[in-house]
């Protein structure tokens, strides 16, 4: 009897894992505020990026301010492969990254190991 109960609990856990990680969930997104022909967004790095999707206005110089609060070495770099940016993020230090907004499009960013992803949308 106990074994059947364990079996059911285990199956439920697997079900939960699939729903939690693969189900559709809303991602944190943000749109930059434009002031003085400049735009910037603060990105917190903790178990991923929040916001995860950043929308920027085309043609306005933009800065993303990354602050890593997570001790994990998984997140200790941020890489924008389209812009050739690979920046170290020392823990609890704000690092500014200039984004070229001259061309509209979607640009992925990732952690140094390509496990966590975020996205800049320029439009």
């Amino acid at each position: 009897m106990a074994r059947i109960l364990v079996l059911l609990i285990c199956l439920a856990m697997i079900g939960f894992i699939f729903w939690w990680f693969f189900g559709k969930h809303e991602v944190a997104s943000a749109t930059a505020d434009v002031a003085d022909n400049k735009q910037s967004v603060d990105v917190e790095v903790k178990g991923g990026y929040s916001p995860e999707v950043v929308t920027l206005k085309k043609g306005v110089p933009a800065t993303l301010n990354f602050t890593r609060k997570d001790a994990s070495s998984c997140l200790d770099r941020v890489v924008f492969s389209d812009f050739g940016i690979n920046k170290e993020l020392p823990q609890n230090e704000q690092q500014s990254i200039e984004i070229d907004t001259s061309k509209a499009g979607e640009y992925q960013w990732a952690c140094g190991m390509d496990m966590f992803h975020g996205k800049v949308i320029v439009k």
Partner: protein
Amino acid sequence: MTITKRFWISLIFSIPMLIGMILMPFGIMVPGSEWIQFLLTTVVMGVAARPFMDSAWSSFKKHHSNMDTLVAIGTATAYIYSIYAMFTHQAVFFESAAFVVTFVLLGQVFEERMRNNASNAIEKLVDLQAKDAEVMRNGQLVRVPLSEIVAGDVIRVKPGQKIAVDGVITEGNSTVDESMVTGESMPVAKNIGDKVIGSTMNSNGTFMFKAEKVGSDTMLSQIVELVKKAQNSHAPIQNLTDKVSEIFVPLVLSLSILTFTVWYVFLGASVATALIFAVSVLVIACPCALGLATPTALMVGTGRGAKMGILIKNGEVLEDVNDVTTVVFDKTGTITKGKPEVTDIIGDEKQVLTIAAALEESSEHPLAAAILDKAQAEQIQAATVSNFQAIEGKGVSATINQQQAFVGNDKLLNEIKIDSELNKQMIRLQDEAKTVVFVGVDQRIVGLIAIQDAPKETSKEAIATLKARGLRTVMLTGDNERVAKAIAQDVGIDEVIADVLPGDKADHVEALQKAGKVAFVGDGINDAPALTMADVGIAMGSGTDIAIESGGIVLMKNDLRDVAKALELSKKTFNRIKLNLFWAFVYNVLGIPVAAGIFYTFGLTLSPELAGFAMAFSSLSVVTSSVLLNKAKISGDVKTA
């Protein structure tokens, strides 16, 4: 707390347990050892493993998972179960949790160091810059920092000093060691009018030069920018790992639960045994090795290329190089020196040169430069022309003294007849691999100018190396067939496609692509479409900006032998990526079933500690393999490979 500190704490508190484990087979049992283990492991879990938990939890809240998720759940399970077991007087395995944390941290310490190693190459390039320079300001030489130098400044360079920025020599001469930028090991002689490159080393002379490019415009800055982009570019092969890494951790979590279920529910194992298998599965799975496989190899490969004067622009190029079967060369400036000289003039030398020089004055064709040089050497005054007109791919025409004059190649002959004496001369010159230019007035040819652009000394060797590798070599040129064939024979190229109009180069490349992937080597503006069309575009660094922009690989030394080196380096880097991915997959594909206890009946199992060690080792081995790419042998001059 840094990873290194966490590692040491973890190690120090794990060692007593390790000693206890070693003593156990000898029958020595420390009294109350369970309590000691509990306290030691609590410190390890609370201090060293705490960040794993934090990170795992914050990613969990965002519906993400990472390696920390696996480590956190794995060690926490072992720890919490052991506390329960301790109170119910069953066997505990605190040490598993502590050892796994120690091993994982050890792996990360090394990995961090290796990763920094891999990305250092570029910072070293930037460090090459001079810090300051002696600049002429208000008629006096003053020492100013690099950042204050502007274009137009005149700068003095003394022997042994570094040249601060890019510019042109205005006074004096010297030899300069440009190896740091071009990879060329021989010092280069520089005279007035010659360009110097910032960050290169002046050797014996003193000279003054005018700054042309400063700051981010200098060649070094451009190279650094290019390499940075390449190092962080996304190789197509990574798309696979991207997909895998998204689902990897949740799948492993599910597998681990499944392992527990199968052992406990279906095979009737004890909770402890089933848990050990489940924890091993969590701990051996290593998504990091998969994620690190490509970027680290790309970083080291492109960095090494930069040091050799070979700039590989992105990961895509590396993949394409692997399947290249044909290498197509542009002739002028690529196989040859690109500095043609007038060797013979047939007809009335003065008249021929006067007309030719006048017409070619506004042309940018390399052959024009040769004619103008000759005219200058002979002190011939160019006549004034009007109605200047370029005939694409054929030549130019204009009006001189109310007469229609023209200069061009043999394609003009479709419209204009040539007498047999000149024709004979033409054939003789062309057989000597000389390009013949026709000079005419009023539909009549008055003379011939023979121009020769000799092959570079290294071209022959370069072609031989490529052929030894089993590659098909083709020369593509706008020159006529006889000249092209003579040069091709000289350097050993198999096939010649001559008389190609500038606009048609890309089409010929496309045609060649039907037989396999094509690499195109070129330098001119007219090569840009072909460089883009080819699977791998290799641009000569001396070439035009647009060619460099279009190429996937840039050879800073302009040495054709580097084509073979570039291909080899790309291949090696790509193979290393494949090897890394192979290992990363093997670790997981083999490790997980073993950890799950599938081979239990054969006596093959993995304890959580060993699984933790294997996991730490997997990322480390991938990064190490990438760094070793720095040591891989790249010898472009191996004749038989």
